[in-house]
């Protein structure tokens, strides 16, 4: 085993990827066996033993420990892998390096293979580079802590649960199921990261999507959760349609899905297709990323996805799944033509601004965080779009840590306040839950771009890239102004959140009664807080471009950098961003910290704008009117066409009344007609011998008459 791993250390990552899958299967088999044995729970025998061994009437906690152990082991392996990788990456030659850290195997082959025409084949494989190694370590590490947090947060689910959110039902706890899906999710995400070809990415992409569906709809008794799960899934399908188009074009013109092969062909011979198709391919792939990373105009699903349990929000909707879109943009970067990159940049800029304005007025703690996630993803896309490949992906890495921290912190708050999520009903929590409060403060500082916190390095790089791009091409000035304004808004809404939740006096009974969460939930907060501060550090500390993580990412940068990333504007962009953030912080402090002026007054003055933002720019209504309603109307129309007026019964056959106004009516009419004809024909066989004789006679006469007529 050891020598096997030493020969190709890349397999470490395969093992780390498969561990959560193994946990998933074990939990699945255990759960199925338990369900199978349940009828025998009261009869003695092996089945009864097995049933109670697997947890009996209550979900078994050991399943959750198993899943947590698997992902923790994955995280440990990923860190071992990362250390090994970084150690080797400078010393070993490229060819040997490829051999040691990348492998691929044929998965499916269609048709015979000969030299003249190679067979159509799909491959599975992995390829570790700096981006994959860092992302893998981040995802596994953050996931592991989220699993630990979930052990505490989901503890309710070990008992029978009274669901009285909207539906009043009593149901068995779903502790095991939660970890089951979480494990499958982790496997999919890790597989997506190590994949060396687009097709494997696509498979994982869809698996991630379906896990997200299961987890958002975890409390599926609630209508809102069921709708949110559907919405997330369907909106993602819109993006995936584009992704499929992109994949089809890649397959047609490159003949392979392998990233390395595609990039090699691009580097040596340029795009092997007409230029407009190359652009369409880029847009298609980017559309998939738009769906997954909740970018404008497909951003509407992410805030609704907050219906899932909070650890899910942290894992999927902050740290990993939504990161998949940004990751793919980074991974497939050479596939994007300059026009597509400009589109990416503008999409990011619009998204980050839009989401930040909505976040300003939200009152649900998780929704504020959800919109801030959308906004930060917009920053990443903007960074990637303007050529700041390193900046965008660095922000992805740092954001994962502090956003997971913020979400877990909000989970801790929600847990402490007995499932109260409304910010106006909190307040004063810093005395009651100090660990949560101060770790969240670190998260807030990091996301706002406070110097020396991880978010500062990445955001500063993005802004300097954007400023450089805008200065070079002044017609794209919006790409620089929007993120600067948004940086201020980010600071404002994040501090608003913190002040509303933790400062001042308790504003509700739940807040008064709040208590600090158990250590199993606060420990992940502390660990993530430490990483949120120092994950991007480098020397010198005050230079954002000295970030060690950034330098590592730089090594994975694909091909020659087409984008413009001049460094001479760094400081001005940094100062501007800092100024904006400081303004946001100051305003939040004035309004919510020291209450110098009342938010209610501002709200009253900007009534229309407030309502507009509160309604999320009416995107939901717009899509409802544009797509949902026509689709539903079309569905009803088709159904009406299909539906029969009433089922045909004996009476109807007797009356021979036929309703042909619908599809079913037409089919019924056919059936009815046959039935009536049969009934008529039956009458011929009357059983009356005299009638038979008469008919026989008449027919004989007729035949004779015919003979006479014909032959005479």
């Amino acid at each position, binding site marked *: 085993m050891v020598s096997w791993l030493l020969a190709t250390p890349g397999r470490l990552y395969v093992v780390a990827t498969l561990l959560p899958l193994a946990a998933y299967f074990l939990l699945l088999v255990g759960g199925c066996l338990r369900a199978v044995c349940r009828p025998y729970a009261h009869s003695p025998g092996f089945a009864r033993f097995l049933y109670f061994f697997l947890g009996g009437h209550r979900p078994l906690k050991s399943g959750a420990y198993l899943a947590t152990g698997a992902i923790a082991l994955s995280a440990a392996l990923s860190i071992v892998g990362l250390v090994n990788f970084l150690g080797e990456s400078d010393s070993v030659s490229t060819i040997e390096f490829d051999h040691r850290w990348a492998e691929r195997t044929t998965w499916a082959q269609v048709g015979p293979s000969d030299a003249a025409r190679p067979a159509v084949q799909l491959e599975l494989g992995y390829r570790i580079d700096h981006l994959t190694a860092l992302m893998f370590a981040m995802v596994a590490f953050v996931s592991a802590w989220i699993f630990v947090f979930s052990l505490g947060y989901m503890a309710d689910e070990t008992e029978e649960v009274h669901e009285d959110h909207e539906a009043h039902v009593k149901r068995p706890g779903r502790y095991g199921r939660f970890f089951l899906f979480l494990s499958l999710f982790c496997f999919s995400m890790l597989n997506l990261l190590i994949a060396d070809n687009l097709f494997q990415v696509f498979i994982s992409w869809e698996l991630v999507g379906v896990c997200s569906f299961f987890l958002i709809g975890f409390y599926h008794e609630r209508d809102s959760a069921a709708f949110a799960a559907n919405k997330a899934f369907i909106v993602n399908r819109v993006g995936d349609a584009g992704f499929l188009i992109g994949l089809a074009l890649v397959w047609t013109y490159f003949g392979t899905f392998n990233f390395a092969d595609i990039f090699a062909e691009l580097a040596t011979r340029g795009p092997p297709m007409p230029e407009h198709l190359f652009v369409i391919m880029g847009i298609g792939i980017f559309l998939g990323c738009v769906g997954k990373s909740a970018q404008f105009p497909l951003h509407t699903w992410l805030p609704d996805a907050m219906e899932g349990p909070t650890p899910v929000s942290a894992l999927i909707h902050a740290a990993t799944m939504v990161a998949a879109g940004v990751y793919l943009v980074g991974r497939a970067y050479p596939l994007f033509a300059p026009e597509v990159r400009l589109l990416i940049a503008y999409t990011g800029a619009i998204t980050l601004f839009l989401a930040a304005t909505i976040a300003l007025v939200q009152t649900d703690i998780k929704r504020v965080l959800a919109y801030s996630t959308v906004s930060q993803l917009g920053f990443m896309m903007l960074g990637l779009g303007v050529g700041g490949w390193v900046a965008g992906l660095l922000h992805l890495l740092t954001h994962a840590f502090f956003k997971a921290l913020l979400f877990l912190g909000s989970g801790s708050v929600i847990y402490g306040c007995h499932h109260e999520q409304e910010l106006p009903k909190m307040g004063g929590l810093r005395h009651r839950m100090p660990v949560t409060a101060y770790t969240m403060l670190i998260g807030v500082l990091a996301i706002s771009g406070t110097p020396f916190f991880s978010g500062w390095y990445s955001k500063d790089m993005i802004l300097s890239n954007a400023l450089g791009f805008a200065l070079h091409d002044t017609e794209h000035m919006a790409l620089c102004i929007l993120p600067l304004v948004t940086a201020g808004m980010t600071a404002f809404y994040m501090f608003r959140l913190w002040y509303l939740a933790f400062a001042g006096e308790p504003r509700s009974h739940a807040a008064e009664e709040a208590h600090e969460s158990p250590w199993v939930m606060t420990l992940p907060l502390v660990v993530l807080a430490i990483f949120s501060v120092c994950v991007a550090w480098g020397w010198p500390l005050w230079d954002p471009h000295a970030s060690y993580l950034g330098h590592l990412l730089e090594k994975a940068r694909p091909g020659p950098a087409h984008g413009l990333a001049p460094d001479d504007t760094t400081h001005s962009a940094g100062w501007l961003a800092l100024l904006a953030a400081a303004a946001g912080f100051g305003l939040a402090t004035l309004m919510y910290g020291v209450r110098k002026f009342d938010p209610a007054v501002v709200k009253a003055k900007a009534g229309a704008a407030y309502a507009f933002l509160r309604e999320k720019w009416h995107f939901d209504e717009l899509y409802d009117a544009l797509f949902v309603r026509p689709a539903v109307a079309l569905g009803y129309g088709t159904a009406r066409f299909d539906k029969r007026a009433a089922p045909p019964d004996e009476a109807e056959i007797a009356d021979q009344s036929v309703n042909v106004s619908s599809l079913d009516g037409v089919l019924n009419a056919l059936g009815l007609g046959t039935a009536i004809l049969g009934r008529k*024909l*039956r*009458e*011929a*066989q*009357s*059983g*009356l*011998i*005299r009638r038979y*004789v*008469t008919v026989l*006679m008449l027919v004989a006469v007729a035949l004779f008459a015919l003979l006479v007529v014909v032959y005479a």
Partner: protein
Amino acid sequence: MTDLGLTPYLCLGAFLFACGLLCIAAKRNAVGVLMGVELVLNAANVNFVACARYVPKFALEGQVFALLVIVLAAGEAAVALAIILNFYNNHATVDVDRADELKG
């Protein structure tokens, strides 16, 4: 005595046949129907015999077939009467219109 030739005999046969057929089709009494059948058979017999007399080729065959039909008629009468008796035992009637259970 003048020889009338074949045609009057054939006409007689056809007339008898028509009477028999009418009897079968019109009578409701099973015995009456049986009588009609006898008439039909005998109409055939008249034809056979007439043909034996006037058509040289049929001299022997005509007579043989006439005998055959007489035997057949006897057998038929026996079977039919047995059926009628049984029918009467079961239904207390010999009305053929009541025997309509074999309808579709």
